[in-house]
C-alpha cells in the first residue's frame, strides 16, 4: 500500500497533497537551504551534501517523520530510487573544480546512489538499496521492482532528479501493514502527475 508520498517540484514541498513549504529563492541551492531551515531539521551534515542528496534527504525526512517507520527495524526497510540525470549535476561541479585540484568532497557525490547512502545513514536504514536511471519517471518499473521486496519490509521508493535548476522529486512509502492506496503503476503515475504536472522547475 502507498501510505504517504512527498513531491518536491517548482520550489515547493508537498506531502500527501498538502503544500508544506514554498520559497521563491533565486537558486535551487537557496531553496533547499531555506526548506531545511524552515522545516527545523537539525542535521549539520545536510550543509555538506550535494543538491541531489539534499533533495532526496528532505523528501525522506518528510515521509519517515510522518510515518511510524520506527516500528520497522533498519534491516526491514528498503530503498528503491531512480532518476534521469544520475549525479550529472555534481559531476559537472566536480569537473569544474578539477581544473585546479580535484575535490574529494565533490567526488564523493559523483555517484547517484550517495543520496541513498545519506538517507540510510540518517534513518538507519539497512535493508536492500537499488538505484535506477531512466529517461522519465517509470511507474511500471517501480510497480514491478518494489513488488519483489519482501512483503514484511517498509519500502521508501521513488524519483529524485536534480540537474542545475531542475528538480523533480516524488518519493513514497510502500507499507503492506498500513492502509493506503494500492501499489500500482497507474496510482503512482496519478500521484506523480497530480497537482503540479511534470513541469520542469
Amino acid at each position, binding site marked *: 500500500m502507498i501510505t504517504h508520498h512527498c513531491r518536491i517540484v517548482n520550489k515547493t514541498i508537498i506531502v500527501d497533497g498538502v503544500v508544506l513549504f514554498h520559497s521563491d529563492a533565486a537558486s535551487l541551492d537557496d531553496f533547499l537551504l531555506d526548506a531545511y531551515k524552515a522545516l527545523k531539521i537539525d542535521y549539520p551534515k545536510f*550543509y555538506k551534501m550535494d543538491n541531489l542528496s539534499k533533495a532526496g534527504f528532505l523528501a525522506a525526512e518528510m515521509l519517515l517523520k510522518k510515518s511510524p517507520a520506527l516500528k520497522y527495524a533498519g534491516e526491514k526497510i528498503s530503498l528503491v530510487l531512480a532518476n534521469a540525470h544520475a549525479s550529472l549535476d555534481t559531476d559537472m561541479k566536480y569537473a569544474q573544480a578539477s581544473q*585546479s585540484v580535484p575535490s*574529494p568532497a565533490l567526488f564523493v557525490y559523483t555517484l547517484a546512489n550517495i543520496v541513498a547512502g545519506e538517507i540510510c545513514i540518517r534513518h538507519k536504514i539497512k535493508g536492500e538499496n537499488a538505484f535506477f536511471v531512466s529517461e522519465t519517471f517509470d511507474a511500471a518499473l517501480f510497480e514491478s521492482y518494489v513488488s519483489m521486496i519482501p512483503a514484511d519490509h517498509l519500502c521508501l521508493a521513488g524519483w529524485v532528479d536534480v540537474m542545475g535548476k531542475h528538480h523533480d522529486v516524488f518519493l513514497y512509502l510502500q507499507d503492506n501493514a498500513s492502509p493506503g492506496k494500492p501499489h500500482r503503476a497507474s496510482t503512482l503515475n496519478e500521484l506523480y502527475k497530480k497537482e503540479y504536472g511534470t513541469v520542469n522547475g
Partner: protein
Amino acid sequence: MEQLMANLKRQIIEALNLKHLKPEDIGDDQPLFVEGLGLDSIDALELIVLLQQQYGIKMANPQDGPKVFKSVKTIAEFIQANKAAA
C-alpha cells in the same frame, strides 16, 4: 599566528561547507573531528586540498591528518613550520 588562525577558520567554513557556523564559533583549541566539530575523513581530505591550494603545502601522507588537523591551532602550527622550512 592570530591572523593565520582567523583566516583558517574562514577558509575551513568555506571549504567544508559549514554554513551553519561563523568563524567565532570555532575555538582555537576545539577538536575538529568527531566529538568537536564532527568532521570526518572526507573533510580531512578537503583540508589537505586546502593546505595545498591556499598555502602551497603538500601533505603526502593522509595518515598525518589526525595529528595536524586536531584543531585550528595545530593546523596553524603545521603551516608555520612548513612555510619556514620551505
